């Protein structure tokens, strides 16, 4: 995961012309090209992380892609704490994508700026080290200036303080500090007991700009003379252009150009654009939209089967019925024999639809392709991938490709793909001015990398002591690796079934089998893959408990006891702890009346542990939340206020999708058009409060976004059962519940 760690990076320092101290990172591979550690270098050659101006202002560079997960606040907090700054005087600046050509290949001067850098043990260590070095230099400088030993000095809120009470602010010694040699060894980092910024509730650094309407998302960025491009894309999966009549489009005042974009080859990996399309370029958005409306296009479907959601469901269920030639994902003990012996058997099938990301800010890019250089301004989460793609398309050397990454209006996994960057580059190549490519909401819902569609068949056997002795999960789903180069080396089940997920390793006879369902629809990451399987697992655990007349919490606790770390790394004690706290907070044991129902579920992956509990009732056609609880253990908490926002937000995201959302295929086309037929939850439908609780541990911090969503949908389905005695086994829950009621 942390490929950057193997290529050793060195901290390096420099001074600006105005005498500010600049501390940044340098890749070991860059040594021969850039001056060595400690030498005077131009600040722009550094991956600048910290700049201390002579007037005491401190600027910290935020290297990550801010998509709403809070890294523009939380990662600079790591530097600031180690540097003993007064956070209220810190100014955070977004760094661009960093790229330096080294002798041994590409160098990332800022470290990993993609999703892996958001919260990882490497980032945790690297960024604090940057702060520690800056602090060390400032202390050395003050020691020189006062002619005292550095051991006589300490730092506090932006000042160096001497034991005799003398005090000098960082800005006053910054110029001298910039002339010193940096430490030759890694510095010791502060113990947790001395943290003043890490772990303290800290508001998002961009809040003020955002609420004033001043924050520049990529779509708000400006380049003089840019043309606006909007597109019509082929609605058929892998379809091609048949006929185009653009006469009326070209007649629209302000329309400058109509450009055809060639789509991917049928069934080949999506390594560029997602679909064939026609782009209309105009002076402004309204002219482009008018031109788009006036296009007369006929599209040809790709040869081969015409896909539909009904057809995929039939295929998936048939694969599960026949149960032959599946890919064995995990096989412990002897499931078949154990089930045969079991006096009590339970089975059920769960169906999940495709889901779109529908980020509030649709994909867009502002790009200027010139001879020998490219400028891209876009909301990204894989800037390195965007840089490679732009190089492949334009032929421009990567160190001549400038990428600015303003904050993005949502991600949820959508921006791990750079298809819209490829489109923008292909269009911009044919004009000599910048191009702003805008995706409409319709484009976004119809052309996405969707969450998997699939059916899970669950089976379990219990012995006469009502102990779970056998467990099987057969999953027939649309795999992601089929058309995704980044997943090619991974097995087909890679983002549908996790062989390490609970209750693997705690049931003696355990089996998981995967059946790939072929589909041309682009597949991608939707909050990771965690919720896809967890919905079936955690719903089914409740069905098992119901059949065995066991309490759903007690059944899970029985499996998790005693606390132990399983082969795959899952700590059953930590999972039990989040589950127990969720149960305590919702007052699980108290009987509810008035058709109120309680539901609970938990999930663990990648070192994060989450549980959800809901108290709901169904009133007419509405589901009413009386209480919503989310408990998480994600290791160290960098910013409690930010984490609470993630727990609240992702809980609401997850229940919004679980209750209402589905992408469906008919006649080889995505049916949903806009927020009317893919309608996320409004305020009136959401819980008025999500009560969030964290169990903090000393484990390295984990980026928990993908895991938070996993337990919400099954907890909700379990609550619906408790309130209505109707077990909903198909997402989205609400239409299915109303059908069954």
């Amino acid at each position, binding site marked *: 995961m942390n490929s950057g760690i193997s290529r050793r990076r060195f901290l390096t320092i420099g001074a600006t012309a105005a005498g500010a101290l600049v501390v940044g990172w340098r890749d070991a591979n860059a040594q021969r090209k850039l001056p060595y550690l400690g030498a005077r270098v131009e600040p722009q050659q550094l991956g600048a992380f910290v700049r201390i101006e002579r007037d005491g202002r401190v600027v910290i560079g935020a290297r990550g892609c801010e998509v709403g997960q809070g890294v523009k606040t939380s990662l600079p907090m790591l530097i600031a704490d180690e540097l003993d700054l007064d956070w209220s005087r810190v100014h955070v600046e977004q760094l661009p994508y960093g790229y330096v050509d080294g002798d041994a290949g590409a160098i990332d001067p800022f470290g990993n700026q993609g999703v892996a850098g958001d919260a990882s043990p490497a980032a945790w260590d690297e960024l604090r080290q940057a702060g520690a070095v800056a602090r060390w230099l400032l202390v050395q400088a003050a020691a020189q200036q006062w002619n005292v030993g550095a051991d006589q000095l300490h730092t506090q809120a932006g000042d160096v303080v001497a034991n005799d009470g003398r005090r000098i602010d960082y800005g006053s010694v910054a110029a001298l500090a910039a002339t010193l040699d940096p430490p030759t060894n890694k510095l010791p980092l502060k113990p947790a007991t001395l943290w003043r910024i890490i772990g303290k509730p800290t508001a998002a650094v961009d809040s003020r700009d955002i*609420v004033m309407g001043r924050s520049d998302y990529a779509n708000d960025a400006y380049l003089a003379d840019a043309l606006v491009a909007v597109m019509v894309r082929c609605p058929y999966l892998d379809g091609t252009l048949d006929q185009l009549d653009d006469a009326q489009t070209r007649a629209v005042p302000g329309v400058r150009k109509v450009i055809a974009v060639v789509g991917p080859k049928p069934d080949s990996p999506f390594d560029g654009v997602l679909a064939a399309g026609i782009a209309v370029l105009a002076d*402004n*958005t309204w002219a482009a939209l008018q031109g788009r409306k006036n296009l007369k296009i006929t599209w040809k479907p790709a040869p081969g089967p015409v896909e539909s959601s009904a057809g995929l469901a039939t295929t998936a269920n048939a694969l599960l019925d026949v149960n032959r030639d599946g890919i064995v994902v995990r096989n412990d003990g002897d499931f078949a024999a154990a089930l045969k012996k079991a006096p009590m058997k339970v089975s059920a099938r769960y169906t999940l639809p495709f889901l779109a990301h529908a980020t*509030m800010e649709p994909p867009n890019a502002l790009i200027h392709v010139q001879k020998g250089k490219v400028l891209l301004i876009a909301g990204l989460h894989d800037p390195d991938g965007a840089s490679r793609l732009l190089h492949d398309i334009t032929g421009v050397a990567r160190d001549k490709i400038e990428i600015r990454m303003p904050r993005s209006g949502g991600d949820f996994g959508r921006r791990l793909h750079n298809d819209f960057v490829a489109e923008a580059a292909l269009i911009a190549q044919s004009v000599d001015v910048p191009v702003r490519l805008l995706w409409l909401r319709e484009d976004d819902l119809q052309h996405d990398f969707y969450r998997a569609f699939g059916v899970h068949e669950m089976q379990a056997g219990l012995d006469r002591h009502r102990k779970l002795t056998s467990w099987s999960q057969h999953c027939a789903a649309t795999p992601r690796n089929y058309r995704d180069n980044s997943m090619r080396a991974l097995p087909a089940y890679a983002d549908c079934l996790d062989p390490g997920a609970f209750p693997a390793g705690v049931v003696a006879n355990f089996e998981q089998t995967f059946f790939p369902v072929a589909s041309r629809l682009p597949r991608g990451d939707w909050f990771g893959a965690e919720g896809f399987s967890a919905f079936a697992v955690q719903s089914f655990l409740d069905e098992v408990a119901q059949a065995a007349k066991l309490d759903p919490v007690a059944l899970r606790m029985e499996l998790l006891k005693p606390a132990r770390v399983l082969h795959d790394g899952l700590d059953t004690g930590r999972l039990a702890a989040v589950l127990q706290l969720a149960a305590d907070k919702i007052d699980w044991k108290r009987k509810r009346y008035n058709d109120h129902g309680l539901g609970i579920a938990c999930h663990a992956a990648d070192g994060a542990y989450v549980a959800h509990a809901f108290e709901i009732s169904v009133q007419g056609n509405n589901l009413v939340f009386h209480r919503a609880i989310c408990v998480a253990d994600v290791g160290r908490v960098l910013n409690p206020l930010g984490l609470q926002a993630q727990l*609240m937000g992702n809980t609401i995201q997850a229940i919004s999708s679980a209750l209402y959302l589905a992408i469906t295929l008919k006649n080889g086309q995505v049916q949903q058009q806009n927020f009317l037929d893919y309608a996320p939850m409004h*305020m009136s439908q959401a819980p*008025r409060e*999500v009560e969030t609780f964290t169990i903090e541990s000393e484990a390295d911090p984990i980026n928990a976004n993908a895991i938070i969503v996993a337990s919400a949908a099954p907890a909700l389905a379990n609550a619906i059962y408790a309130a209505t005695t109707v077990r909903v086994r198909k997402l989205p829950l609400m239409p299915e519940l109303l059908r069954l009621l």
Partner: protein
Amino acid sequence: MQDNPARHSKPTPVPPVAASALEKTLPLRINGKNYFSDDDPAMPLLWYLRDMLRLTGTKYACGIGACGACTVLVDGKAQAACMVTLKQVTGHSITTIEGLAGNADLHPLQQAWIDEDVVLCGYCQTGQIMSAAALLQHDADPSDADIDKIANLCRCGSYPRIRRAIKRAAAASKPAKKK
């Protein structure tokens, strides 16, 4: 609170324009300033604000009036800017997020949004604030049920913090009578 256009319930009159000029140019009053546009009268206000005036705090997210990201105030009432044309708003007073605070640094809602740390991705929040501003003008002390009437979408799920921020702003705006 000083000179806050959003709080004036009466529409600000647009200066009279010669009838002949009206045929070619549309007089517009936006954030207290007068503009004369010779753009297509059928252009939605959203694209005029964003492309022509570069007031980009008003966001595009659906184009069909379903999400509220482009909410502005027209004569003090919440309106999706993607759903009205320049012609339709001629002669009306328009307030965007950039003009919400008037001469003040921040509108109480903007301050409350910061205090409650409402922002996740942030993209919908300017529209949320404009809808909340329209609500508070109509009802200075809204109940939960009143707040529920705000139908702006937030894909990140910030609703509980939006609710808290509206209540905080309502409390802050109450005239401090006896204390």
